[in-house]
């Protein structure tokens, strides 16, 4: 469910960004991740995980603003339109058993491809936005999403997986044809934001799973004990 109007303003996003930077700055000091020698993909996965959580927060604010910009019924909390024109959007929802059975490479590849498409669509959204404030917020989010894409690419590289190559002619476009009405366009925008939110949620799960998988048992115990410390 997408958030309704009245979400935190953009100023909060900057605050969260500062917070994230602080977290990232101190990440090397976390005992579980600060191992001598080759750190492996662990830190990269942790960073990617943190970034997805940060983007989740940032999107909550952005989506509230954008859906208000679209107007009712798109900003109503229980609005759930049919997915008419948004079939080209990469779907984040997947059967749980299928999701569990994914191997690391496939998991990362799906993430990478999904965000590549979503980023492209999001940039199209930015071009259509009428207000400067909204364009600024969207551009900021696109930059962050680009960062996430780079982070996923980094994890894949650390694990030795090649990046998926886009097939020629399959570059996603977000230019509605003449038959594509403005109402359908608004529904597509709605689905884009919703799918993006679902993907960020799924990515957090993905990277959390990867993180646990990559951590040595001792470090896990350490973290476990620290958690009990609270």
């Amino acid at each position, binding site marked *: 469910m997408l958030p309704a109007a009245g979400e935190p303003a953009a100023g909060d996003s900057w605050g969260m960004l500062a917070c994230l930077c602080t977290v990232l700055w101190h990440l090397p000091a976390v005992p579980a991740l600060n191992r001598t020698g080759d750190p492996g993909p662990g830190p990269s996965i942790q960073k990617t995980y943190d970034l997805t959580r940060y983007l989740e927060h940032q999107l909550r604010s952005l989506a509230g603003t954008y859906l208000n910009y679209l*107007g*009712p*019924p798109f900003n109503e909390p229980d609005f759930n339109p049919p997915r*008419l024109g948004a079939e080209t959007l990469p779907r984040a929802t997947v059967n749980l058993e299928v999701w569990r059975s994914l191997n690391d490479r496939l998991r990362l590849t799906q993430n990478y491809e999904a965000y590549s498409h979503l980023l492209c669509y999001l940039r199209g959204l930015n071009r*259509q936005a009428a207000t400067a404030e909204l364009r600024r917020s969207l551009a900021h989010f696109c930059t962050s999403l680009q960062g996430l894409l780079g982070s996923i690419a980094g994890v894949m590289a650390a694990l030795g997986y090649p990046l998926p190559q886009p097939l020629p002619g399959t570059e996603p476009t977000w230019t509605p044809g003449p038959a594509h*009405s*403005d*109402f359908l366009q608004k*529904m597509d925008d709605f689905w884009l934001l919703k799918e993006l939110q679902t993907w960020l949620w799924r990515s957090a799960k993905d990277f959390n799973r990867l993180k646990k998988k990559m951590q040595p048992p001792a470090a896990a115990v350490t973290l476990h004990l620290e958690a009990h410390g609270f």
Partner: protein
Amino acid sequence: MAVFAVFQTTFLLALLSLRTYESEVLSEPLPLTPESLKVSVNSTCQCLHLQWTVHSLAYHQELKMVFQIQISRFKTSNIIWVENYSTTVKRNQVLHWSWESELPLECAAHFIRMRSMVDDARIPKPGFWSNWSSWEEADAQNMLGHDPLFVFPKDKLVEEGSNVTICYVSRIHQDNISCYLEGVQIYGEQLDRSVSAFELKNVSFIREKGTNVFCKVDQGGVLGGIVLFVSKVLEEPKDFSCETQDLKTLTCTWDPGSDTGLTKQPSQSYTLFESFSGKKTLCKHRNWCDWQVAQDSQETYNFTLLAENYLRKRSVSILFNLTQRVHPMTPYNLLPKNVGATKATMTWKVHSIGNNSTLLCQLELLAEGKVIQQSNVSIKVNGEYLLSELEPDTEYVARVRCAYTNHFWKWSELISQKFNTAEAAPSEAPDVWRNLKMVSGHPTVSLFWKPLSKVHANGKILFYNVIVENLDKPSRFEVLSIPAPASSTELTLDQCSYQIHVTAHNSVGPSPASVIVVSGDPENEEVEKGRVNGTEDGFSVSWKPQSGDATGYVVEWCDGPQDLPCVLQWKNLGPNTTSTVISSGDFRPGVRYNFRIYGISTKRMAHLLEKKAGYLEELAPSDNPQVVMSKLTSHSFTLSWKDYSTESQPGFIQGYHVYLKPKAGEQCHPAFEKTVLPEDSVCCKYTIDNPEQKTFVVENLQPESVYEFIVTPYTSVGEGPLDAFTKVTTPDEYSHTLIHIILPMIFCILIVMIICYLKSQWLKEKCYPDSPNPYKSSVLSLIKSKENPHLTIMYVNDCVPDAIEVINKPEGSKIQFLGTRKSPTETEFTKPACLYLLPTEKNYSGPGPCICFENFTYNQAASDFASCGHFPVTPQAPPHQLGPLTSPENLLKALEQNYMNSLGEIPAGEANLNYVSQLASPTSGDKDSLPTNPPEPALCSEYKMQTAIPLGLASAPPSENSSLSSTTLLGQGEHCR
């Protein structure tokens, strides 16, 4: 055969030509049916577009025709529109006609047919309609896809205030379809089984992204919608005007009004069109536009500003001459040059306009925000102006604006520059005054001066120079330099005269000197005193002109109340002035201000002329004096309030009111005036009209009466508060006399009592001796006087008694008493007891005749504890102690009391109610009761210790024993004489 065929063709052609000719010439109306009717649908404008031809027309023939068009909706019989369309028709010409539908065309099938009629003037007969063309169907629903629900019109752009019809087409044929406008459900009309229409009236702008209208099947997940783009109405540009700053570029400005931009429609565009040159330019900004002036010296311009968006166009025009619209640019480089104390030159520059054109510039000089000078200067490029009559050390603001000289259109923007003039020496001497007083026996002069006003200071005053010149010793100077902002100094002088010069100095130089002469002699304070009246403007002080050579006057006063330190104020006045108004914002009502008027002699010496006191506004006294009452008699008392100061009151005290509340029913004394107090009580009032009379005797009072009084001062405004009356009670009339009698009497009695006390022994002996003393008896003197030596007095001590017989003399009552309580010893009372008397000397212990008292009371019990000892018989033993022992309780009490009294005398080991001496005679003792008593020597006379008998120890009823014993003792006491 061929010939026949040719003939037949020729005939037919001839026949056709003939028919055509007939129709032309004879004007025979022909049925010209529209043909090739085609209908197309334009969804964007919701238009039906018709096109047809009329083939029946002759070549080159033009006819004016009317086409009647019918439009049906849903079915051919449902005709919703009929319109006659007139036009001129040529042969084979394709005719066009459009019709805009209110209902979106996608929601319903439309059917169109038409017929025609010749409506040409050249055909005189009235025409007749041709046959109808066949119905043509325009069904946009065929173009729809397979979605279950459609809403139309898609993405329609309308103006605010329009009416819009929305419809939906449902393929699922369900009734539970709801439609919403911006989330609010709307209700419409069902046109068909699957089509409903909703009319939105007077739609308004909501957002740039459009107004959302959507329909959905309830609980079906089917949803369709449109975005209705409502644009604000394009306004006509307001305040359209053009001007140039340099005759090269025209700048046109306007107020664009509201922005009509939507995501579906860009903001309105503005185009500037000049009719004389025929040029136009598309403006890049929504409220201004630049137009390059052509080189061909075009002077007159006719501009039209056209605003347009997708829905509307608005335009506005102006016509003007270029040279009459010159608005020069703001001057620049405005700078002060050669700034002196009173003059400054301002220079500035302007941007040139064309060739050899001049500008009229206006230079304004402002001081403290107000324009004080204004000058107009005509310049070409460089401007310069000399400002004079400036004040030294003053901040000024110069500002310049310019206008085109040839034709004034507008002033340019202002340019301002701040500058300060230079300082100059102070132009006036400081206003100096002095105050003379004696400090430790030395005349001390306090010098005060007022800071120079800004006008006269001409700069920042740095210090004051005080030059003290001894007039009696001309060579003696003393120079003091007092840094600003001090405004006073103190000089200790001697008895000489001094001339004091005070000058104020700034960075440029000194001011003229202010000269004052003071003398060490004390001032003459004995001058005329008067009063001044305060008004709203202040105090109007006047004085008598000083005959002689007064060069001026000075009025001196203190701003604050008398009880506060004086802030000395003064005012200089000319020699011909004899009155002035002293005003100050510090003056307060109810405060006495004292003014001293001095005359200034030609020698600059000040002499006190008069003293004045006054109030800005007199008030009623706020406090009453502390009154002391004295000399209270039964008819009068005296009131006194000598400590009351009349000087420090909120008004001139004119006198006092003495209020006396009389006794109820008592009339006021004639000197008093009857008055009614605010609380409606009657009072007697006496008015003292002399403020210095501070005592008053209240007389003619009634004795033993309660009076209440109060003394309150009064001013011209009113009297003090009547709130705290003091009560006084007059004393009794005779009490005074009685006191004079009773006191001496009491004194005398006291004296007598004291004397009696001191001589009590003597009196006792004289008047009532304890026992007659023959030696002191007057008989002796009588005897002696008779000189009879043989007569003497016998002393008792000299007598040696032989025996005393004690006779028991029973009394009737006692016998009766005893008879009622028989005791074992009763019978023994009848026998006379034989007693042996001891000598009366103290410490007698030698053998002699013994007196043996046998107290039967103690026969049994007391003897158990008896021990023998020698106790002297004291003749002073008071017999009365024994008297009341008539009951066991009394006995015990007496015993205890005696015991307590004798504890100090009796040895501790014998502290057991040792009392009445009783000789225990072993011989005459009761042998039965004391079988264990040791035998005692017969000759030893002893007192047997008598012990109180505890009740429990007594074998006999203690009451009886005690009573008996008491009786016995009493009897013994009585009989031992």
